[in-house]
């Protein structure tokens, strides 16, 4: 038996590289994305979405998603469908904001009907406030609702009436918090209201591509962000969420990415890029931290929710 010359190391290296290449071209983009799971696809079936636009995490571990078919669906933390309900009217348009009250009630910014609807955890409507208009206790396209530790309710709206109003726990109008120019620029589509651990109110001034921090009395504490695609820059921030590390998670609708900021406005990291594959986003309207510390991203144009281990 003749033993041929054996350049074992070189040949094995070649083979491994070849195999890895073939394997890799199929799968590489998905590794390291941090995506733990995904749920939903385009459709009207339960568990499917037709352009989802808002998400809210229930402190009890489930998440609620509202889409352009006017359905609010509740999912387990891993994306199993629990149940849901429908908006009473959808002809004029569908909601873009969803918030869960610590007591389990669900507040829906019924944007195109200029009101906020309140549901109990089972989906039974238990209240409503606001009507179309620009006066007190009226709304023009409300986008987002937040609830502070004392139960006061805050609502953001836009369409020439760009402001944030404060309501009592009994759904009575109290005051207008933010209106008029901040640093020389008028608010333009405020949205993404969220309270941090210090009970200050954060929101995204979406069309000015910046974030604003308000005290509960309406004093402006911080603003930062400008239009762009670099770190620290924003493109249509639409939703905010506070991480367990008390940093700020921003979902950029126009930037197709998530960005984390410190409270001082330092960009900590970004995640995501445009596309249709896992780990990629297309026009994401919202992202929120779930009670288990994972991030749920409403990947609107892809009609799905991606679950991210941040």
């Amino acid at each position: 038996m003749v033993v041929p010359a054996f350049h074992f190391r070189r040949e094995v290296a070649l083979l491994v590289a070849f195999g890895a290449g073939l394997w890799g071209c199929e799968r590489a983009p998905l590794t390291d994305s941090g995506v733990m799971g995904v749920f939903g696809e385009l459709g009207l079936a339960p568990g499917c979405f037709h352009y989802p636009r808002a998400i809210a995490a229930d402190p009890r571990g489930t998440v609620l998603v509202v889409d352009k078919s006017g359905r609010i669906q509740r999912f387990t933390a891993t994306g199993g469908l629990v149940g849901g309900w429908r908006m009473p009217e959808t002809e004029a348009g569908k909601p873009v904001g969803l918030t869960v009250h610590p007591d389990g009630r669900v507040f829906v910014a019924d944007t195109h009907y200029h009101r906020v609807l309140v549901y109990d955890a089972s989906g039974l409507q238990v209240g409503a406030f606001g009507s179309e208009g620009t006066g007190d206790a009226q709304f023009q396209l409300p986008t987002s609702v937040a609830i502070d530790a004392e139960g006061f309710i805050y609502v953001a709206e836009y369409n020439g009436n760009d402001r944030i109003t404060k309501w009592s726990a009994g759904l009575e109008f109290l005051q207008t918090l933010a209106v008029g120019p901040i640093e020389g620029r008028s608010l333009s589509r405020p949205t993404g209201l969220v309270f941090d651990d210090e009970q200050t109110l954060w929101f995204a001034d979406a069309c000015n591509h910046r974030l604003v921090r308000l005290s509960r009395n309406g004093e402006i504490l911080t603003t930062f962000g400008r239009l762009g695609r670099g770190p620290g820059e924003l493109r249509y921030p639409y939703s905010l969420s506070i991480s367990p590390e008390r940093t700020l998670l921003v979902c950029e609708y126009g930037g197709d990415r998530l960005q984390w900021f410190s409270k001082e406005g330092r960009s900590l990291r970004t995640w995501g890029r445009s596309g249709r594959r896992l780990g990629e986003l297309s026009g994401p309207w919202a992202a929120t931290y779930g009670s288990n510390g994972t991030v749920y991203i409403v990947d609107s144009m892809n009609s799905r929710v991606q679950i991210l281990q941040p």
Partner: protein
Amino acid sequence: MTVLALSLPVEFEEPAWLWLMLLIPLLAAAAIRSLSGLDAPRRVLAVMARSVVIAVMACCLAGVQRVRRTDDLTVMFLMDRSYSVQALEGQQEDFIREAAKGMPPKDRLGLIDFARQAFLQQMPERGGYYIPAGRLPTMPGTDRTNVTAALRLAMAAFPHDTAKRLVLLSDGNDNMGDVLADARRARADGIPIDVVPLWYEHANEVYFDRLVAPTYAEPGEQISLRMILQSYKAVAGVVDIYANGELVEIPESQRRVRLAPGSNSFVVKLPVRSTVTQSYEAVFRPDEPALDAISLNNRARAFTFVSGGSRALLITSDPNQDRGLAEALRSEQVAVDMKTSEQLGEFDLPAMMSYGTIILSNVPAATFTEEQQKALAVYVKDMGSGLIMTGGDEGFGAGGWIGSPLEEVMPVSFEIKHKRVIPRGALVLIMHSCEIARGNYWAKEMAKKSVDTVSSQDYFGLLAYTYSPGGENWEVPLDVNTNKDAVKKKIDRIQVGDMPDFGATMQMAFTALTSGRGRDAAQKHVIILSDGDASAPSSQLVSDYIKAKITVSTIGIGWGNHVMETVLRDIAQKTGGRYYAAKNPKQLPQIFSKESKVVRRPLLVEEPFRPSVVLPGSELLAGLDPGEAPPPLNGMVLTTAKQNPNVLVPLIRSTSDGEDPVLAYWQYELGKTVAFTSGFWPAWGEAWTRWPKFAKFWAQLVRWTMRQDSLANFDTYTRVEGNRARIVIDALDKDATYLNNLMQKARVVGPDNRAVPANFTQTGPGKYEANLDVERAGQYLVNVQVYEGGRNLGTLRTGLTVPFSPEYRDLKPNEALLRQIAETTGGRWLDGGAARGDVFRHDLPPSEAKQPAWEWVLSWLVLPAFLLDVAVRRLASRLALSICVEVMILVVLLVGAGVHAGPWWSVAGALLFAELVGWTIRYPYIRPMLESLTHGVRTMAHAGERSEAALGQLKTTRERVRGERLAGGEIAEEGDTRGGAVEPPPIPLAGAGRRFDVGDEAAHAAAGDLSEALGGAMASGESGTQPPSARKGKDDAPAEDLTSRLLRAKKRAQREKKDE
């Protein structure tokens, strides 16, 4: 896709390519020679790899397809939502919901609802019916039942990889298209249509069968209107008659009628009080509404042409401006009516037909609806009438007429093509997604419409918020609008997204219009289409727009509701544009032609010039003295004379930059048209109005264009039966003899203002008949040119009215048609609730889905096989080769065949298979190693046994010798000495270099010496080991072989050298 996909059958599109496989034996034969340098297994592998490459390439060329068989089922429900079954919608939804309860989890359910059009309401989805009760969107156009549209949509929406079934829920009163033809198509595709009949019956019903009016009347003549009504019961009521929309007073005795069961006929006599075409409508109102189930069928229409002589209609946007022209015409005995667009009333084709010619004096296109524009074109080319268009700042291209149906019939094209320097306009459209149903669809339709209206010399661009890449994008970059079709196709493909604010897109438009492609445009305009829920632009940007004189118009799409107007209104008002709240889709075309014309201002020339006569002999310039030039004009609209020999251009404006037509005319099909591109008295043509020949010139134009009615005097009558109408001509000459073998050229213009030919055939002496489809309710005009042997005998004009859709005539389901649909397609008759469970029964043949597989084959078979071939020949070591093969098999199975996505056992199986092949290849290489390893261990073990045995023997021998010695005296000492001399023998050097069996040989040697010493006492322990000589011989054999082969080769080479 799992590993099973591999085992499924494949098919080929063009199997002829498989003959290429014949190359494989040839290649194998060639390879055996060319690869003789390789050892046999490698050669076999290389040949196999190459054969695979050839075979697979042949498969690819032959168009290999994977065939998937499945008995999953998709059921599409077709839900009839037309007027006749509106009351049964809940029943239909219940049926679907109940049927969905029994559906297997892998089956899919889809829903299409239909009336005049069909809409996909639920894509075929697994798991059930998801539309909540009563939540189906409002159905437009319920006045028809169009099963065909639903069938076609369903067949397009079916997924390709399941068995398919259609379930039609309908009353079968189809009144559009040919259902059975499409049913046959479904059968050809193997799709059965199950039918769920919807039962109802209207017992109390009255309907207007028809209203009959004479085709022609003279002004002041008494005419008889005959009304035919059908009733199921005896009913009392009143009949009101309207003439051109106004209630006609008739005596109460004639107005009040009592209907008996069956057919009832009444006659009312009326005087004709006008010179225009009379459109009559009769409405029956029962005293007891309960006796009439459907009220929509209680009216009927008819019309009568009034021969009012040759009249002209002058349509003006400002009567003061055109009063002079009207008076001038009247002074020349031309009967002319002057009306503004508001005075036109219901200006449809029959109304137009009251006039022989129509003058559009500085009237913009937006004055008329799309339908009226079509009617005007038909009025000219199919009805043989005349049309004169004059300019002004709202005439021709400047009036938004570019791309309109009228441009086709005019002698000039409204675009300018002959100029070197063209003043351009620029239009940017900003599309924002509309939240309401079909909002984006209408926005796109309008975008396409504006592409048409904007001249091909102008700039057009479209901005939208889209998702690839995400953000504001120029979906149609601002550029000259030359390739309109391509731009329209592009608009169709746009996926309009939710635009957060208007600022970003308005900024982009601003940049493009001020410093980009559109900076040289003379007129700049932006249109925003939106439902208003985007944020307002900054005030800075708005003031930039104002400074740059860019106007912005905004159109709120929301049909009167659901539009956030504040921002839209604000933008338009500040920038000098207009805000439109579109109340319904029908308004949009007019809004758009009005808006798009803004950019056409550059088409106006507003400077004095004297028109030059270039065709002095023209019939329209008769009366002009030789050498006489008409008076100067102060302005005109730029157009281009059509390149057609029929187009005559007697008056032009001559400049260094070319000649612009001032007067152009031609005959187009049956009608005649004139373009006078100036006008706009008194601003542009003040000198003309004072010109003595002004009246004569215009009278000449009008008379030339006037429709020439030489009516053939034959009796005609028409009859409508359902969707078909019959027109009969009785041709008798003056002597009452039949005229046979006449030829007719007939055009029928329906309510959609489209002219279609009608074919007459002779059915008896002097009797000619034509049948035509009348699918829309409304008025139909028939224009017949009668010829006898090539000689025109004149024109025959008649009309017929389809009073209401046949949908309102259906009193019970059309069971026969429904049964026929089911029978034609092999479908079932699912009557009653019990049938619901059958909908998802799996009794259809499994479906076959064919998927092209050549890409897969190419990437996962050819590539690895090719690389394998290279590896086999180039990789020297067999171990490396085996690993290569193993990896390739793994890659093909895991990635190519998708096993990685399958269950764990399939992954394990793939791994096992790859290992098996790998080890098979490397076995010959590994075997000797293994063998020697196992051999050494075994021999050592044997050696141990042997030495023990030898020791035992030794001891017995010693005992024996000692016994002998004891018997013979001193010999015992000698024996001891001999015994003490037994030592391990030296290791034989000859075997030292041989492989690993050193110990073995040493043991043998030792045992041999021992046995020699012991005199063959070891014989019993020898079994299993070979004699050293035999082993030695065998081990040396390959070395000897190699050496001797080399020697032989050397000798052969030397010999060959010597021979040379």
